[in-house]
């Protein structure tokens, strides 16, 4: 028996299905970079251009780190844009009210955590479809943002050190924007979480087969609630960063964040139905998305036309995922 096993093992693939998918998407990223370089040899591969892509992708990379886990568990979080707006607005208001900037940021993030917690708890405890409940929370938190800001942009009265959170630190000549550092740190944290925690492993189980997860003694309520709480926290953090960058709190600060996160995750191999996907893949997906955006910007494509492209990319991404899955029979 063992000998038969050993023989089979030697001829088998050591790479997991996820690994193969990530490799393919990374190849696509390189291909897009090459295309960009060919189209704009002078402007594309400059530090400026790279930095633009990285900074633009911070919100998505930060938020999608948790949204990927939510997707893996078989759920959707459509509320992240609203949570981000709400936390950003609250952050702005807190600082205007005189609360020290770092404390205000933490409070705003706690509000995001509360929203995520409720969101995940309702979905898991009452067995409700996630897209409905998270849609409710999207408009719920969005509404709170609108009421708190009265629909206006908040800038007056914000202390100068609001900018500190998202400032650019200089090492010699190179300026490294802190948001990029945050994104890298958070991505690394969630890479760790996804690979090395029981929580993430249970999320995969729930997304793959929720009945089996229950039979195996996994608490679906705890895991799903935790996943949504994380996404609330990170969405809030993204909102705070945006406010910090521009010293303005506006309700429409993070347009389309939820769809961007989903696109990044899907491009990175996350299965819409749950059970598959990696944070590493999401990062690659986000980079693909924002490199494409950069190319489109250079090409002069308008923002709303980019939205159309994003919709098409989403559909294509899901199709490509399904095709790759069916071809890799590891």
């Amino acid at each position, binding site marked *: 028996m063992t000998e038969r096993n050993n023989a089979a093992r030697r001829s088998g693939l050591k790479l997991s299905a996820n690994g193969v998918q990530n490799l393919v998407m990374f190849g696509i990223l390189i291909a897009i970079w090459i295309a960009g370089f060919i189209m704009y040899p002078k402007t594309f591969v400059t530090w400026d251009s790279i930095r633009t892509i990285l900074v633009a992708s911070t919100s998505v990379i930060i938020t999608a780190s948790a949204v990927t886990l939510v997707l893996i568990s078989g759920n959707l979080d459509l509320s992240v844009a609203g949570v981000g707006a709400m936390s950003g607005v609250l952050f702005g208001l807190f600082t205007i009210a005189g609360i020290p900037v770092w404390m205000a940021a933490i409070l705003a993030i706690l509000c995001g955590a509360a929203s995520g917690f409720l969101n995940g708890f309702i979905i898991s405890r009452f067995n409700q479809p996630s897209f409905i409940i998270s849609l409710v929370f999207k408009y719920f938190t969005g509404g709170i943002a609108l009421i708190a800001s009265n629909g206006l942009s908040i800038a007056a009265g914000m202390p100068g050190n609001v900018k500190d959170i998202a400032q650019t630190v200089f090492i010699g000549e190179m300026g490294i924007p802190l948001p990029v550092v945050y994104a890298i740190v958070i991505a690394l944290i969630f890479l760790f979480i996804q690979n090395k925690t029981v929580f993430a492993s249970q999320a995969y189980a729930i997304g*793959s087969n929720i009945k089996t997860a229950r039979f195996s003694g996994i608490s679906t309520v705890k895991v799903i609630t935790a996943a949504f709480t994380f996404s609330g926290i990170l969405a809030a953090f993204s909102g705070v960063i945006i406010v910090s960058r521009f010293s303005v709190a506006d309700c429409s600060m993070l347009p389309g964040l939820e769809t961007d996160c989903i696109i990044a995750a899907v491009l990175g191999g996350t299965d819409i139905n749950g059970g598959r996907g990696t944070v590493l893949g999401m990062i690659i997906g986000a980079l693909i998305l924002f490199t494409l955006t950069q190319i489109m910007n250079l090409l002069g494509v308008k923002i709303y036309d980019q939205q159309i492209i994003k919709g098409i990319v989403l559909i294509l991404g899901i199709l490509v995922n399904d095709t790759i899955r069916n071809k890799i029979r590891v």
Partner: protein
Amino acid sequence: MENHVLEIKNITKQFAGVRALDDVSFSIEKGSCHCLVGENGAGKTTLIKILTGAIKRTSGTVLYKGKEWDPAGTREAMQSGIGCLFQELNVVEQLRVEEYICLGLEETRFGIIRKKSNNKAFDMLARIDKSINPKQMIEELSTAKRQVVEIAKALAMDSDVIIMDEPTSPLSGEEVRHLFEIIKDLKNHGITIIYITHRLEEVMELADYVTVLRDGKHIATKLRSEVKDRQELIRMMIGKNIFEDYIPNKVNKDKKLIEVKGMTNRKLKNITFDLYEGEILGFYGLIGAGKTEIARAIYGLDTFDGELFIDGRKITSGSPQKSLRNGIAIVPEERRTQGICTSLSIVVNMPMMNYKTVTKYGILSNKSQRRLAQKYIDAIGVVCRNENQTVAYLSGGNQQKVIVGKCLNVSPKVLLLDEPTRGIDVGAKQEIYNIIRKLVKDGCSAIIFSSELTEICCLCDRIGLLFEGELKKIIDNDETLDTQDIMHVVTGGSES
């Protein structure tokens, strides 16, 4: 000249490693009630699936009304005249009775339903049961009445043959009588009924013909009048099985690992038994007997009235987590939907019931996970390319082995196994039996819930016989074991 509405000729169905049907041939008379009996795994369900177009035969022919019968799928089969009452009724709760019966059959003009088109429903329904109001919502009907509605729908679809799969399982005495009258009436109108049941008195009362299957083979088709009594049926169903494989375990009768007293819920009636240390206890019964319900109740998935003691401690409210902590693990009935996460690899599946063995200070160690998976792959003998293989691509037997590995990871004191070798090839079956025996020798006790008599008899020290949620008796697996008697009990026979 005999009038055969269905002729089954040399039907064989081969699954990977399992021959579910082996050269089965017999004929079904038009206008008769033809009962199909046999143990679980005898091939009844497979045959029905072929007749209803759910699966394709490997070889052989089926003639329906003299012509070759090869429907593309269940829809085509139903539209061509073979109706089926599945155990899971296919009614739509939010429709009215008449709407459901006429579903797909409405007379329409650009989608608009004409007033007259529901008359057919009234006629069909009135013929078989005048007490059901066609305007009622199906959600308000009892299971028995829903069955009647299904029959009416089959009639509305002009079915000549209606297959009923264990129809009386959810019915009460009065409702059973009513169903029998309906069947008699249907026969008078030339409809053929194929009736699958394990309740032999029903066969004796209802059947015009009886066909017995065993291990995928056709044993006999007889006129009911030629069958002397249920004992003869039982003899045909189980054949001459001599269980030589059974090896008794060293049972410690002084220590009770599990005590169940008066367990009662929706499906169970006052179940009382004990599990001793070192023994393999079996529960045998046919469909609906309550096997899975007992397993679920012990494991904490279902609530019940009564008392449950694990290792002397009383358990008040249960959950899978609590059971696992108490040392009880389960190999569930449905492998693919309850036992493993099919899209994940062996490595990820293995530690699911107990992450403590693969974590260090709370952090998951990939190396430990791989080592754990490897350990059980070797110990249990899972045939796979490597531990990273997605479990969906393993054979049924190997999937089951992975599930056993999951359970062993908990270091269980008691292992519950629900239909442990269903749909698994013969070779893998033996391997799993050996694994179970070794487990018990190493200190774990086991409860096996199965509807395969051979399995129960070669593994278990004591056997509990279930019928319709009641524990009829518990017998010892020794020289006094009488398979005739066992079948008699589990098919509803009364104590002699």
